[in-house]
């Protein structure tokens, strides 16, 4: 079950598990556009002052996969679909507001049948509504790694999750929070 991580998900997870894109057992992938957002977006510079330390840990799928004919076609298809202004987010009742990177994430996920990790409400709803994609929030991924015995939970990781609050990260699902408590036998300190 390969999981494609978007920028907000990478920002939440990379400090918890720096090897997530380099060790195949984590089954996590991302794309070049996410790497570029991670390293270049001005607003992340102050919000995530540690980002440069982890930039080398982010390995993208590579041009052959990310820019394949199918992905390019599906990206165009998704853009056309959104630009018809007829597709309404059935959860919020508003039009979908997806950035270029979001559309690429959706195109890659649709092309290769990846699951997606994100906390972006619009992207999440779009993927579920239009492609029936399985979406996992970052805490859900951490739980998966813990279940598989890939990750050992310690105080350092716990403090990173505490930082999610400080950084105003999105709230995680109740079920995932309950599972986290069960798996780590610790209080969940994040949002």
């Amino acid at each position, binding site marked *: 079950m390969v999981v494609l991580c978007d920028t907000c998900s990478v920002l939440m997870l990379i400090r918890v598990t720096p090897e997530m894109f380099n060790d195949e057992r984590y089954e996590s992938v991302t794309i070049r556009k996410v790497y570029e957002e991670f390293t270049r977006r001005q607003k992340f510079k102050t919000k995530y002052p540690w980002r440069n330390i982890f930039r080398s840990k982010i390995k993208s799928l590579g041009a052959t996969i990310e820019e394949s004919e199918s992905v390019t076609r599906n990206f165009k298809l998704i853009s056309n679909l959104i*630009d*018809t202004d007829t597709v309404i987010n059935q959860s919020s009742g508003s039009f979908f*507001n997806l950035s270029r990177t979001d559309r690429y994430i959706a195109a890659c996920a*649709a092309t290769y049948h990846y699951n997606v990790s994100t906390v972006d409400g619009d992207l999440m709803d779009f993927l579920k509504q*239009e492609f029936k994609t399985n979406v996992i929030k970052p805490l859900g991924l951490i739980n998966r790694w813990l279940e598989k015995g890939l990750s050992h939970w310690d105080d350092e990781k716990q403090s990173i999750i505490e930082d999610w609050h400080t950084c105003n990260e999105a709230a995680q699902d109740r079920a995932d929070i309950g599972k986290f408590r069960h798996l780590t036998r610790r209080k969940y300190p994040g949002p």
Partner: protein
Amino acid sequence: MKWEGSIIKKKSDERGLSITKLAQQIGVSRQAVNDWIKGQVPKGLYLIALCDILDISPDDLFMKGEDVTIQMPVYRTRRKAKIKPEHEVQLAELANEYKNLFRDKSASTIHPTLKISNRSPETAKIIACKLRKAVEISSDKPMDYEEVFRLLENLDIHAIFRDFPVSRLYAFYTRIFEHRVVFVDLKTNVLDLIFPLLHESVHVIRNDSKMLIVDDEEEKFCDIVASYTQFPETYIEQIYEMIVDLDPPNQINILKQFSQTNHHAICGIIKRIKDNHSEFDLSYGGADTNLKKNFPKIGEVLSKTDDVRQFLQNYQSLSPIFFDILLDKVENLTQRKLGEIFCIESYLDMVSVRDEMLQMKKLRAK
């Protein structure tokens, strides 16, 4: 972009594929395919299946109409504030992030007396005079940045403050669903902002009904109007009289004093004096750079403190009509989205920002 369902029938016929067979291959009912042919847009996963089975491209399925949602001006030849073609895509994407805020709002039109039909120097002076009058500035005083924002409000222009992906652009004008919007780079010093904002305002007036392709001549005209709007002739002549007989260091000192007191850069004033008095020449070196150190960037003006209420009040005072739209829609805006809109995720608590806005909305209703 318009859905072209009829292409499904045409391409199926070409391939000798019945609607029933096509529906079976996609895994939906025959009725579903008929609905798509009649105009219902399929879900994304079925669109992909249609492209695969019928071997058609996304552009076959959607007809391109004239996209009037976001119009970027096709111009920019000014020395520093240049929009290159590759920047236009990035800036259009930036503008696109705000599209949904403007979607169901109606835009007003520019007052007819402000519309310009020719580009003569006389017209430039007349329109500058009208713009100054609109914000009631005395005839001998240059416009400062707060007055420029008042002018934007007067022209029903939305000012949106953002971190630009392009450096040294300062500000650019675009139209989103007929709304006049000027994006302002948060990193811009307030002294650097006055002239570009006035320049963009002139574009707004000129392009009220339709986004025009702007040529060099148009850029020059906008520059002239912006300069006359910022600096009245009496102000220019007053300074010229004071410095004309002085040596260059003293000329610079006087110019610095005027600039510091009246909030403008030195370069603009020298350019205007040169335009009026061709014999005048003065090299001002790094004087402007030093002067600007005494003035904040527009981002710093907005976030003088970490106080949420103060930030929102600052935003509202500089961009009241855009702020009104945000208040209208605040219930539908997530904390994350608000953080992106304001570019403040890194230093303000977005829960408090949203709560404060809801409070402001309640007060406004009363």
